[in-house]
């Protein structure tokens, strides 16, 4: 059955109204399981009506196609209604991880020129502190207040009560901007990765061909909607196929997760290597009596999946885990292990049919099998980003000719399997979340006691890479436990909890080159006890 009907590419429409038109109106779109284990089922008809109602809310507030709305929410049902409702109206929807701090929010909302934000009361104070610097931000919609607080701080429920649920999405062409996620680089501010509505073609295809989803599945993607996996595969891919999802509002809890897999009869499960490694550390009694007969497949994404986890899953769960690879920029799975392919533990798998992948040298020359180089993709995949918002030069710098340079390094073996080798920049991958060392260093320099800082990622058995901060204090200050706490909390509250340094190392100076750039490779070599290599450019 064709996904796109009558040239209507609108993601919000396809994931809701189109499913109802195909006879799934009464089918459960998602079972909401709250952190306290309360369960509420929402049908595709509910999803359609609530998202349409929200589209009408935005329209009444004067939102026009192309304007930007962000959600800044923990996992709640409103996340889905707002996301799909905004897309129905052709408003661009950005999602923000709910543990972002003031600086992280200011960078993203400021760069995007967001007109509106949906959040919760407990998160509102962070926005209030920076609102004065956000000249475009006109409306804040709060999901857990009953009445409007002012002309600009509005109650979600009051707005929804006044709106009708009758809305027909305008015919949307494939190039219409849709979803915005910010991603971290090793230098500069985070960049706004902009996608367009045609991405649904690839998200639908990969949900079907890789995740092997069909109408009868119950799918659970554990990713937060603040990240690309949470929107591409926690919303768009499965719902474009009319698949029932489990949406769980709580955080990691080994016992509860196994109970959910069993009690909800999850058939396909998409999670992250860090979570799987945490489960692996649990006592076998925890999952021994667990009946996972319904579970057909397990997939992972975000960081390389180490072979030990695959072996554990085979022995304990009787399943393979299929590791998938993609980036915020690619919008969907590109290289992957999958049920039809023999798993080589530790490998990224193979590219999807029709997607051209190459290992290229820095000068653009193709490298042969078993040679490490830049992992590159040929332009043309429908889910690829269309630009970095307000940063065309950064976008252009990622392409050479038709090839997109992913920033990852990899090699291909003689059988066509790809093997991840690392990043070609300094970005830190902590539990599947990319952290910019620059953002952490900037937060550290806001602290009075800190004179200089340099931040690196170091290998970690559980979370893949941990954040290590090297700090030089101003001469008049001495290191103390109180200062450590101050630094940890400052980074956590200004950047995000995931950016908090796991280790802080006090040094006499931060190595820089003659132009003042922090030489993170020297810090990394020092931390790992390795040779720092050529130091001729050291200042």
């Amino acid at each position, binding site marked *: 059955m064709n996904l796109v009907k009558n040239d209507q590419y609108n993601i919000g429409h396809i994931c809701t109204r189109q499913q109802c038109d195909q006879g799934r109106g009464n089918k459960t779109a998602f079972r909401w399981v709250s*952190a*306290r284990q309360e369960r509420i089922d929402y049908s595709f008809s509910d999803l359609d009506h609530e998202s349409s109602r929200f589209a009408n809310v935005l329209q009444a507030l004067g939102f026009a196609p192309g304007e930007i709305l962000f959600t800044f929410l*923990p996992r709640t049902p409103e996340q889905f209604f707002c996301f799909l409702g905004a897309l129905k109206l052709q408003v661009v929807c950005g999602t923000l991880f*709910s*543990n972002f*701090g003031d600086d992280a929010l200011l960078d993203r909302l400021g760069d995007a020129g967001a007109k509106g934000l949906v959040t*919760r009361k*407990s*998160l509102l*104070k*962070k926005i209030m502190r920076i609102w004065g610097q956000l000249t475009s931000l006109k409306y804040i919609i709060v999901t857990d207040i009953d009445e409007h607080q002012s002309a600009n701080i509005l109650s979600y429920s009051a707005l929804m009560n006044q709106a009708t649920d009758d809305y027909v999405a305008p015919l949307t062409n494939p190039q219409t901007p849709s979803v915005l996620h910010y991603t971290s680089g090793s230098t500069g501010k985070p960049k706004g990765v902009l996608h367009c509505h045609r991405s649904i073609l690839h998200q639908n295809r990969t949900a079907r061909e890789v995740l092997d989803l069909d109408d009868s599945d119950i799918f659970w993607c554990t990713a937060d909607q603040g990240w690309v996996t949470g929107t591409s595969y926690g919303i768009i891919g499965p719902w474009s196929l009319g698949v029932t999802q489990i949406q769980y509002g*709580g*955080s*990691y809890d080994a016992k509860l997760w196994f109970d959910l897999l069993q009690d909800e009869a999850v058939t396909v499960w998409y999670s992250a290597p860090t979570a799987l490694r945490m489960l692996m550390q649990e006592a076998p009694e925890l999952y021994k009596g667990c009946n996972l007969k319904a579970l057909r497949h397990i997939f992972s994404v975000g960081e390389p999946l180490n072979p030990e986890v695959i072996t554990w899953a085979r022995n304990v769960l009787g399943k393979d885990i299929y590791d998938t690879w993609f980036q915020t920029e690619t919008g969907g799975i590109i290289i992957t292990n999958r049920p039809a392919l023999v798993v080589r533990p530790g490998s990224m798998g193979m590219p999807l049919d029709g997607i051209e992948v190459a290992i290229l040298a820095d000068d653009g020359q193709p490298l042969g099998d078993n040679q490490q180089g830049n992992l590159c993709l040929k332009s043309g995949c429908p889910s690829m980003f269309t630009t970095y918002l307000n940063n065309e030069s950064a976008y252009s710098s990622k392409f050479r000719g038709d090839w997109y340079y992913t920033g990852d390094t990899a090699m291909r073996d003689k059988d066509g399997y790809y093997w991840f080798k690392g990043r070609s920049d300094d970005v830190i991958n902590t539990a599947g979340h990319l952290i910019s060392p620059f953002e952490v260093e900037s937060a550290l320099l806001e602290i009075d006691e800190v004179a200089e800082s340099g931040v690196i990622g170091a290998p970690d058995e559980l979370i893949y890479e941990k954040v290590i901060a090297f700090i030089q204090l101003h001469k008049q200050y001495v290191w103390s*436990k*109180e200062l*450590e*706490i101050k630094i*940890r*909390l400052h980074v*956590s*509250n200004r950047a995000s*909890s*995931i950016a*908090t340094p796991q280790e802080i190392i006090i040094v006499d100076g931060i190595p820089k080159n003659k132009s003042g750039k922090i030489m993170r490779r020297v810090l990394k070599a020092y931390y790992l006890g390795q040779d720092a290599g050529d130091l001729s450019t050291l200042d």
Partner: protein
Amino acid sequence: MTTMEQLNVIFKTVFDDDDIMITPEMTANDVDGWDSLSHINLITTVEARFSIRFSQKELLTQKNVGDLIRDIESKLAAGN
């Protein structure tokens, strides 16, 4: 200040939320932003402010704020 009041101050600082009012029944599910990483910040701050040190076993058995208060008070009573 009681232990609970002192702990409330720590919660406000760690979770950057002046409105937090802790209760013994409160768990991570009740506080936006209380994830595994901010939990490390919470425990580090509690240990420093009360000059105590939790064992691994204690940390694993603390299921809510009440358990945390119980462990803090037993350590303070024991002079640790």
